[in-house]
């Protein structure tokens, strides 16, 4: 009895939990207009999304400052703001490798089991464990699956009883068969001229080439990889003027939306573009602005397939363009913030949001459960035809803008015929080696 009395005395006098007086009630996230629209729509019917703006504060970043990468400065100086960031896949890798992002799966905030494996892999980063082993850890929760794919004229391929090409040899063969018989078709294949490297990366990977390995080390200068890269670039350059736009025509595709317009107008048999362009094409067809005899009139005229690889390679690749929600490592100063951040991610990456984004914006849900709910739609079909395939790999491009700029510069030289593919890529590898040495 007396011990019990003492225990109570100890409990009352000396064992109370210290009060955390410094915790915040709201967290700050990087504002995103699309997310905001979706949340507002859901708030009308779902009480979970009501008062969202009161609980979570959006951080508005002036557009002109984005090019300076303000979050790099913030996170590199251990800033607690913002708590949650919406990051492009390459940035997830860059930030995670610098130790700026909070691990999501190990800490129990989010399980990647619910995510489609391909996109979960794209947002996972190898993290060294205490025993020295590297373990793939989910560092951001993707809201959708976005990657560049090959759009093709399904109606024409069907007409000529041809299957979508799996490699570049097949693609060229399809083009050579159809183009002479379809005078409306001006090009066999078109791709982005600005930011060409975004379209080139999956081609390069499909040839077994790469720029950096998963640890961020330069591999392009390695002979085997450099040769693969040269082969990939040579393949593209070799089609210039015959299947792809000539050097003179390339400038026609520098303007925004020029690619999708050309495809809509029926000027090309194949197009490399983001999968989200399907929604744009759908809208264009719905509006029915006929600009020529070959203009698409029905969505069934459009087919999608993975970007071809080199003959003999089993995997085809897509340059992941999805965004994901990551948590600032330095912001997690107490359990309350951690819980609030977890709750935020649970809300913004939840099934209803992804289903609504699929319906409104044509985004492919990253959650397997949400995909089930959009079964049968064109979004689901794109997923089934491309990202559900085991041979398709979603990979992020190198995160360094300098690396991309150097590569792009030399790719342009080759694309515009100013240098050979060999010279261009060799020069790029030398320059990148120098850059990474100094960096």
């Amino acid at each position: 009895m007396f011990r019990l009395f003492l225990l109570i005395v100890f409990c009352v006098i000396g064992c109370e939990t210290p009060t955390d007086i410094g915790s915040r009630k709201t967290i700050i996230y990087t504002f995103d207009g699309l997310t905001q629209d979706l949340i507002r729509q859901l708030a009308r019917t779902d009480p979970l999304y009501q008062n969202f703006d009161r609980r979570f504060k959006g951080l508005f970043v002036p557009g002109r400052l984005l090019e300076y990468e303000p979050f790099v400065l913030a996170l590199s100086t251990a800033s607690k703001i913002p708590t949650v960031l919406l990051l492009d896949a390459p940035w997830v890798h860059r930030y995670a490798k610098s130790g700026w992002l909070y691990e999501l799966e190990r800490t129990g905030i989010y399980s990647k089991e619910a995510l489609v494996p391909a996109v979960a892999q794209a947002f996972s980063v190898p993290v060294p464990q205490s025993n020295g082993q590297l373990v793939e850890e989910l560092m951001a929760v993707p809201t959708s699956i976005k990657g560049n794919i090959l759009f093709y004229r399904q109606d024409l391929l069907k007409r000529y009883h041809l299957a979508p090409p799996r490699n570049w040899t097949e693609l060229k063969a399809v083009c050579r068969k159809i183009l002479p018989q379809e005078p409306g078709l001006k090009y066999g294949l078109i791709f982005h001229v600005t930011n060409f490297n975004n379209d080139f990366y999956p081609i390069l990977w499909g040839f077994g080439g790469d720029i950096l390995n998963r640890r961020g080390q330069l591999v392009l200068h390695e002979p085997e990889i450099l040769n693969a890269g040269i082969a990939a670039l040579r393949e593209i350059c070799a089609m210039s003027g015959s299947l792809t736009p000539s050097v003179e025509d390339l400038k026609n595709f520098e303007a925004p939306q020029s690619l999708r317009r050309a495809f809509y107008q029926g000027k090309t048999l194949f197009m490399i573009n983001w999968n989200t362009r399907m929604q744009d094409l759908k809208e264009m067809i719905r509006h029915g602005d006929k600009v020529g005899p070959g203009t698409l009139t029905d969505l069934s005229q459009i087919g999608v397939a993975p970007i071809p690889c080199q003959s003999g390679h089993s995997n085809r690749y897509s340059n992941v363009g999805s965004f994901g929600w990551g948590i600032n490592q330095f912001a997690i100063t107490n359990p309350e913030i951690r819980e609030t951040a977890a709750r935020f991610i649970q809300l913004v990456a939840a099934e209803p949001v992804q289903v609504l984004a699929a319906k409104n914006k044509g985004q492919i849900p990253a959650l397997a459960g949400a995909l089930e709910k959009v079964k049968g739609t064109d979004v689901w079909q794109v997923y089934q035809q491309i990202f559900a395939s085991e041979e398709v790999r979603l990979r992020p491009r190198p995160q360094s803008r300098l690396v991309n700029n150097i590569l792009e510069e030399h790719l342009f030289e080759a694309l515009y015929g100013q240098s050979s593919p060999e010279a261009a890529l060799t020069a790029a590898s030398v320059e990148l080696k120098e850059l990474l040495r100094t960096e």
Partner: protein
Amino acid sequence: MLGSPPFSRNSLRHRLMALGGTAFLIYLVVILLFFPLLHFTLKDLMERTIRTIEEQKANEATTIARLLVLEFSHLSELLNVEPGGEQQIDQRVMRLLWEKVTFNEVIEGIELIHAVSDAEGRHLTYWYYRREEPELEPMPGPLRGLKKFTGSERQLLESINTQRIVREDLLGAVNRGPKQEGEMLLRYFPLYIPLPELGAIYWGVAKIGIDVDSMRRMLLFQSQEQSKIRNTVGLEIMLSLLISGLLAFGVVYFWTKKLTQPLNHLSRVAYTLETGQTTNLELWHDNVEQVDPQGQVEVNYLRRVLMRLAQTIAKVSQQLVGAEGQACQGRVAGKIIPTLKMQSRTCQELQGEVQESYQSLLNLLKVYESLPSLTAAQREEMRVVRKQLESPYKRFSPAKWTALATNLQTLDTYLQDLGHFLEPPEAVWDYINLIPNLNRALNLIAPTLAPEVKISKGFEILPAIWGCQRDLDQAWLYLLDYARQELAAGGELVIQTRQPASNQVEITLSFSGPPKSEAEIQTLLAPFQTSAAPPVHWGVTLAAAIFRQHHGDFSIKPRDAGGLSFTARLPIGALP
């Protein structure tokens, strides 16, 4: 005046006081436990304070370092610096360093370390430290040069330069122990130069030293304040305990005393009955009645029961006394009757002899009267016979006559004595002489004793004492009857009276018999106070009660040769 019960240590009052004392001691211990609690609480508070201050300082250091890094990130010219000759940007950078360190007392020093190192592992570095500590030589101004780093700092710089990671373990290692630059908290941040189109370009490491002297002063102040709190609280607690202890003991003592007063009073009254101090049950009943329960239900209940018990005991005692007296008289009578019978038979025999002699004279006279003639001798004989018939007793010898007379006298004495005890006089208190009735009782008992019992009497002349003749006679009879039962053939009975003091007489009855233990003697005196079986006869107990009733004293002592010695001391005069 009531006696004090011997159970005072176990009494309710003492237990309540002990309980109160124990409760206070527990309270005392609990309060004293506050000291270690206070110590641990303050220690915990100190640790938390240190932790909080260190966290605050770390946050402050991080914030200041961040602000500086953000400012340095605008120095896009830094991207063009190279080792070797002085460049245009150098002056700007060094001026900035000097201003920041000189005019902000929180900033102890700054280093900007370029990521690129030469073949010897040296980095182009701009640095300036205030070096305020007396043992450190002050720097003449900001410096630029190639600097080589070692140990944990080198590892930390490598991890930042290669992976952009500020490893906490290495940062902690660098901050532990003495530093070349002086005592300060160091922060290392990657320094990016953001450029349009190109984004944030990594340049190197910004190393910022933050002053920690204010934190040390704060911690010292905390420690001193806690010592003060400890001493003050300790003193206050000790004073509180002292005052509350005095108050508690005072209150508990008086409260307990008042609370237990009725029960204590009742117990003391009951104790007099238990110890036999009381001889007057009516008085004892009155004493019980006078106990004030003070509203305590339990005491009131006990009081009622004791009063009823007193009444019952009185009735039972009366019956017991009456019954025991009758029993005693019956036993004595039963024993004396054979003696009386023998005496009676002797008288009858003597009477028969007289009767027989008279009849023979009568027959002889008839023979002479029937004869026609008588000779002179016959006539003379006839005259003698007629004379003898007129006084036939004259034919007996004087010895026979004496024997007859003695027998008759003895018989008469026995009958008178027996009658005295069987039909006692009324209980009257007066001055009485003890010796005659003591003798009378002895006479009555003597014939009933075993054969050859030697009776010794040593009576001194005693003054008359104030008492009840009937009760005292009964007492003598009780004692002698008990002695009779104990005495064996050839035994000894001694009865003595004396006056040991002018106001006191003493009667001693000593007799042989089997040895008696103290417990047996105690059973005789106070049969209810021992656990032994009560005596078969209550005579001695009742005799003792009679002596106490006469304000006398009665004691029993064992004789060395066996048997007992009863001594009764009675006051001569009536007590006030």
